[in-house]
């Protein structure tokens, strides 16, 4: 219960909500507005189904999120894990973006949420580790998985009905109909499989991180 508030003891800049004004503290104003204009145009096309725009958006966004996290995290090993977690969250929650609002505040609010969640988990882990050192040794090694994570390996941990749709549609670029024929999974189940699979992938990255 107290976990909700323990973060308030963290440095102010983490607890402080990300607003336009906190963002302006760093890059100059016009750079910010051009960043917003670019990202917003890309994301709007992406939401309309433009995969190229979406890829560019995610690449740009990952850069911004990475530098945001670099300024706030000491353990550099965690940064890339967290960048990926934010990207998956952006993807899985992209329906929550309100097109009338700046996409940068949406993006950084997600990044901040994931950062706080990450710090809270680390604090919690440190706490439990201290409490039961003996058990920690026998736990499956989350640290190793995180350090040496490979997408293929993470995908392997998914059930077939999620893994196959993702592999065929998302990696090999087959259509939903082709994947359905190939795997014998119905078309709607393929779509559901991709959706659920990406969600459990997000959960797994979080669990491993």
């Amino acid at each position, binding site marked *: 219960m107290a976990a909700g508030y323990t973060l308030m003891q963290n440095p102010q800049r983490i607890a402080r909500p990300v607003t336009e004004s906190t963002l302006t503290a760093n890059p100059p104003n016009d750079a910010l507005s051009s960043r917003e204009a670019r990202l917003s145009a890309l994301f709007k096309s992406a939401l309309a189904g433009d*995969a190229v725009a979406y890829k560019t958006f995610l690449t740009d966004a990952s850069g911004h999120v990475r530098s945001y996290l670099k300024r706030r995290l000491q353990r550099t090993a965690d940064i890339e894990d967290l960048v990926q977690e934010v990207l998956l969250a952006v993807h899985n929650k992209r329906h929550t973006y309100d097109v009338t609002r700046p996409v940068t505040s949406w993006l950084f609010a997600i990044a901040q949420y994931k950062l706080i969640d990450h710090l809270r988990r680390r604090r919690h882990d440190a706490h439990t580790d201290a409490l039961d050192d003996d058990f920690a040794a026998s736990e499956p090694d989350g640290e190793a998985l995180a350090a040496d994570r490979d997408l293929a390996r993470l995908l392997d941990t998914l059930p077939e009905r999620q893994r196959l749709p993702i592999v065929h549609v998302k990696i090999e670029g087959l259509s939903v109909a082709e994947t359905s024929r190939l795997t014998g999974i119905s078309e709607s189940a393929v779509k559901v499989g991709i959706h659920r699979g990406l969600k459990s992938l997000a959960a797994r990255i979080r669990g491993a991180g």
Partner: protein
Amino acid sequence: MKTDQLIDLLSSGAESVAPRAAERRLSLTLLLGGAGAAVIMLGVFGLNPQLRALLSVTDFWVKMTFTGVLSVAALVTTLRLARPGDVVGGALWWAVAAVAALWTIGADALADADSGRRVATLMGHTWRTCPFNIALLSAPIFVATAIALRSLAPTRLREAGAAAGFFSGAFGAFVYGLHCPELAAPFIGTWYLLGIAIPTAIGATFGPRLLRW
């Protein structure tokens, strides 16, 4: 490098996303949760037998408007809190204004009443059960709202939980108004608000655990 892989994975075969998803999911909540509350209200308490006559009573409409405004204010606030980086905005002030307006009427009613009747006006006949009945009706709405919020992306979990609880309490109170025989503004401004406070406190307490994503 691995992040690039992930970006490829996420962007390939991108599908379009229907706009206004958050609004649609929360409207569904309104429908499902409201239906659940109505079923409980009809089954457990029953519609007020005098409802037809009440339709021409101003105090009845004051009560329904009060819970209606609180519901809308809470729903708008919940929606804002369900989207990362959105501003909560002024919707909560509508709720404050509604309480202030109700208590302006309530203060008049208490001032007009004989000193012997004041306590009776405040307590009505059902003050013992009213808050708990409202809390009971809020339960299906709270469940529906929490499910909707989990599919969205609240980043301030305690506030989002409280807003969801506030909404379910206010909307539960609205539904309860179709059963409840009480009409006095001081009663509504006390016991209805207490009923709404129960799910609000529950939402604030469990929000961080319930809504985490």
